[in-house]
């Protein structure tokens, strides 16, 4: 029994869920009303944005070979920009905007994926370079000023209570979670992702189309970042050029806190969702604490290190 509990406590998902509970209770104790339904809705909304970006990051990381996507933040901003400019506050343009953004951001991600697979540029380098291009392109298109506005219907869908008092963005996140988990656990593509992430050579010998699978992962990461851009636009109505930057590194952290190994091949999206919630809860608790910004920052960083201590450690070399 004890062994089983110990085993369970080593599961990142368990730790993340415990962390969520502790943070919620702690937050309520520190400032009553922290765990109130209204506050929860805000938290879930913010977590949805991070969670959807982290979904793409999660895919790329699962695919292994030092998979990482540093371009997500730039693509979020780009998606929001493109969506806002196509919509121009008209509900009729929501569908074309959605299609255009998803296609464009998938293409950007796929370009990174092709660089990684066909030119064999390390993902960190390729996506860092792509980030520069996307950011540069955004400056060219926007001239540094926010442009484009969300359609009213998109705003309503994302921020207004849709069902059980939860706004649409939360359901969008849940849908992404369900689709992604289905994709990873129930389709050939999903099995292939774990196969190339765990052992690429073995997967290739078993007939897994390694390059195509990995390139697609980057494409999907781009697409999910683009989708986040649309959600962000709906949430804030209009979006600044660098609005997506804040998601770049936290998306990686959410994946790692959620128990997906940066080495690839093990983990899943449910953990990442919990990881995103932990990050957002932590930030929000720190905001309610009456301490200056630098203090929040220091506590945030130290807490991340503490989480690493719990289960983010790498294997010993001996044995």
């Amino acid at each position, binding site marked *: 029994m004890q062994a089983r509990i110990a085993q369970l406590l080593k599961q990142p998902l368990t730790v993340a869920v415990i962390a969520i509970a502790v943070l919620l209770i702690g937050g309520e104790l520190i400032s009553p009303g922290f765990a109130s339904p209204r506050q929860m809705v805000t938290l879930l909304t913010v977590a949805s944005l991070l969670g959807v970006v982290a979904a793409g990051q999660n895919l790329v990381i699962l695919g292994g070979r*030092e998979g990482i996507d540093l371009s997500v933040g730039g693509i979020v901003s780009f998606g929001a920009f493109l969506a806002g400019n196509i919509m121009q506050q008209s509900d009729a343009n929501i569908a074309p905007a959605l299609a255009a953004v998803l296609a464009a951001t998938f293409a950007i991600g796929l370009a990174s994926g092709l660089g990684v697979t066909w030119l064999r540029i390390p993902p960190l380098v390729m996506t*860092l*370079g792509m980030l*520069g291009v996307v950011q540069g392109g955004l400056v060219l298109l926007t001239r540094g000023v926010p442009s484009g506005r969300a359609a009213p219907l998109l705003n309503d869908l994302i921020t207004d209570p849709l069902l059980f008092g939860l706004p649409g963005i939360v359901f969008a996140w849940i849908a992404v979670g369900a689709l992604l988990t289905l994709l990873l656990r129930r389709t050939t593509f999903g099995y292939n992702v774990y196969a190339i992430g765990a052992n690429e050579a073995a997967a290739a010998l078993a007939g897994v189309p390694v390059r195509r699978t990995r390139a697609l992962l980057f494409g999907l990461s781009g697409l999910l970042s683009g989708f986040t851009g649309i959600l962000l636009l709906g949430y804030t109505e209009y979006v600044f050029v660098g609005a997506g930057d804040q998601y770049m*590194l936290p998306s990686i952290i959410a994946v790692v806190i959620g128990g997906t190994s940066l080495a690839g091949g093990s983990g899943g999206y449910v953990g990442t969702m919990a990881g995103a919630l932990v990050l957002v809860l932590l930030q929000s608790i720190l905001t309610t604490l009456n301490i200056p910004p*630098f*203090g929040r920052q*220091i506590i945030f960083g130290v807490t*991340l290190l503490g989480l690493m201590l719990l289960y983010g450690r790498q294997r010993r070399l001996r044995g």
Partner: protein
Amino acid sequence: MPPPEAGESPATGAAGRAPRVRLSAKQRPYLLAVIVLLVLAATNAILQPTFLRFGVVTSNIAAFLPLALVAVGQTYVVLASDIDLSAGAIVSLVNVSVVTIIETMGGTGASIALGLAAGVAAGLAAGAVNGFCVAVLRFQPIVTTFATGIVFSGIALWILPQAGRQVPPEFYTAYAGSVLGVPAVIWILAGAALFAAVVARLRYYHALRATGGSIHAAYQTGLPVGRVRFTAYVICGLFSALAGLALVGETASGDPLIGQALTLSSVTAVVLGGTALSGCVGGVAGSILGAFILGLIGNVIFFAQLPFEWQGLVQGLIILAALAGGVLMARGKGE
């Protein structure tokens, strides 16, 4: 993933002298950096007729120096197949610490000396924290240094919430001045190069590359991989500190956000210089070239009088092309 030369480096030298292994394939990325740099310099010279004047050369070196220093430090970490995403935060931390110490102590000569010493100590300490977390506690490097970077920049904001404060004129005139007819910034760069040349002759350097090539093989050979990685982070902290000091000399004031952009730029510079992120392959000289390449790209775009809104995109495309070209060249004809 581990490069073929993984096992060759360590401990095979006679009488404690490390063996010199030079493969042309390994030098090629470095050569590409030289070519790219020359092309950029030529372009720059055409666009800016004064480019080769001594004063302009010196001011360019001064402008590129902080990034070059961070890139030098980053190289050691990357050679061990790790990464330091906190380097820019260390730059900021050192920058504000030095300025604050000097100003609150009245700007005397003693306060400047103490400020410099404290800045270097802060950089070394920050590097040691990173090294401890990664090498001793076995945390994942990307996430760890991201987290420590948040802490470091939090401390920097604590020390100096907003850009400001002043250092006494002695400080920045010395930095802008010359010693024995050679500008101080060139001395600093030469010092960094000398440091790298000395380290490259130590057994440590070969242990470092062996660790980056295959940590398991290095461990089984009996190399102290933990200490090797720890030291690499401390070196990176040291050079980030020097970059922070250089920025004090350059701007004569403190700014808690000044290092932010240097983190990813330093990684870019390292890769542009031909060092592989997978470790083992590469070197400091390439990274200095990489930093200069990044600086010259900015210069060329500026002097080409491209419309403002095009600059970012063109810069991004050139950097992406250079990164891709370097990686492709490094692979050579072997594939």
